[in-house]
């Protein structure tokens, strides 16, 4: 009887510790999100979106240039990264299905997903900034696109693999060539999944700072010229948070809130689509 009690107590202690660990994880989430919300909402104002920065140390001003710049960099990154990623994923799941080449590229993509983004920044600096002679927006987009491609490629591959093979056979039986089957049957069946992959990849790069530090750099003036240095929210947050002025800190919190809300909404939206399309998994 004694041994049984000891085992029960041991089990209880271990399970309590696990529960504490879960609470510990949730505690940080609430702590960080709470701070971003409280500090961010306090600093939100229409001026933040409508005004450009004022000289350092002066009150007022906003981050219109950074919002526009961030949108442009992210938009062009998506424009480059998504087609390449979707097409590449198509190759792995369809034309190269079951071949060694598909496995190798798939594994390499998984590794690339987690490669430090700052390294990609240095790579782009060497090929798109140094030869041009100055920082530019295109370099920023290119760096983000390289981060996006493996993410989109892997999710596309997984989603296409979920489409039952019999569907393709049914289309083949009607005499459809393979490319038509892919475009009209497979893509249609996996559309929700591919869309989720795209949303998650945008969420992944929207908060990237390191690769932008020495590609698109920063610009204290409003600019939509992608051939020149262009401001971005994330680099502005870095500059403002490290800076000495309270007004800068407040704006950095507000910008952080906007980015966090944007990313969390994309993440949740992606999950909702998957749940609605594929049921509970």
């Amino acid at each position, binding site marked *: 009887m004694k041994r049984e009690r000891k085992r029960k107590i041991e089990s209880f202690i*271990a*399970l309590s510790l*696990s529960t504490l*660990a*879960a609470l*510990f*994880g949730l505690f*940080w*989430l609430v702590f*960080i*999100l709470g701070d*971003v919300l409280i500090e961010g909402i306090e600093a939100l104002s229409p001026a933040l979106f409508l005004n450009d920065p004022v000289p350092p140390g002066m009150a007022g001003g906003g981050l219109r240039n950074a919002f526009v710049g961030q949108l442009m960099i992210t938009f062009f990154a998506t424009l480059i990264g998504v*087609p*390449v*990623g979707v*097409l*590449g*994923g*198509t*190759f792995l799941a*369809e*034309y190269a*299905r079951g071949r060694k080449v*598909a496995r190798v590229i798939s594994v*390499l993509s*998984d*590794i*690339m997903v*987690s*490669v*430090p*983004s*700052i*390294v990609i920044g*240095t*790579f782009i600096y*060497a*090929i798109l900034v140094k030869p041009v002679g100055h920082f530019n927006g295109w370099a920023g987009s290119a760096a983000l696109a390289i981060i996006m*491609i493996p993410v989109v*490629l892997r999710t596309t591959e997984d989603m296409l693999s979920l489409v039952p*093979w019999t569907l393709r056979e049914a289309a*083949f039986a009607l005499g459809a060539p393979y*490319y038509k089957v892919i475009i009209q049957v497979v893509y249609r069946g996996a559309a929700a999944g591919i869309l989720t992959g795209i949303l998650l990849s945008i*969420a992944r790069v*929207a*908060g*990237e*700072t*390191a690769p932008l530090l*020495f590609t698109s750099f920063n610009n204290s003036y409003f600019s939509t010229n992608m051939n020149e240095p262009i401001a971005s929210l*994330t680099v502005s*947050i*870095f500059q403002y*948070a*490290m800076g000495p002025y309270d007004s800068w800190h407040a704006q950095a*919190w507000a910008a952080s809130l906007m*980015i*966090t809300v944007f990313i969390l909404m994309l*993440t*949740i939206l992606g999950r909702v689509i998957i749940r609605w399309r594929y049921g509970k998994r």
Partner: protein
Amino acid sequence: MPVLFKKNPIDVAFSIITGLASLSVLVFIIGILYVLFTESSPAIEKFGVMKFLTSTDWDPVRESFGAATSLYGTAVATAIALFIAIPVAIGIAVFITEISPDFLKSPIGIAIELLAAIPSIIYGMWGLFVLVPIMADYIEPALQSTLGKIPLIGILFEGTPMGIDLLTAGIILSIMIIPFTASISRDAFNLTPEIVKESAYALGATKWEVVKNVVIPYSKLGVFGGIVLSLGRALGETMAVAFVLGNNHQITTSLLDAAATITVTLANEFTEADSDIYLASLFYLALILFVMSFITLAIAKFFLLRAERRFTR
């Protein structure tokens, strides 16, 4: 799965286009290696490999550079992060798979994933404005007056608690990698066949004994892969650490001193490098980081693949 379809020209073209798109990943990997290698070649020629890795110099004025200080900071911050994150993450995974009532499983899973989605710049800024003061005012003095009094261990907590140091950086990193480790461990735990667990319960095992003797042995490959993957991520984390580590190129024995990691050095100095050899040395650091994290991630992937294969035979 051999595909039988009539070769028509559009199909051939489409397979070539998609094939090239998928090869882009390979091109990036080889391109990054090649470009970083050529860019850093002046530094490689001047400082060699072993000398660069072991030299503690980082002196732009005398143009003498070594990676040891950055490597040391990277290693220590990552070690602290894993030390905190592994037990917590495994605890979370045990909670989600074995303890939590069904209606809580999904919300907690989502919460952990949201924690993983928060970008690192937010962690960094929050660390600088919220965590650093807490560390400097409460936690670090408390550590000094308790653990700091113990001989040998006390060395780790010497100095003035400023909050901008290796310990804070390690804690921020740990918060960042807990979600990854937890979700991969959870997936690994879920691969344990239900029937084996049921059998253990039928023999009268307690819940903890089932976790300890059935679930963990079954999923140790996957959990280990998850830990190595988190390690690979932690090595390359930049912004979360850049705010709270200072940029101090010295090897310190105390965890309460500012230091530098490879990523922080790159982020702070890349745009300021004023001489060719300085820039080449920074590229050299980037190359070392790329190779290190690539190898780490490849090892992780190897274990995760083996873990999957065990069950899908």
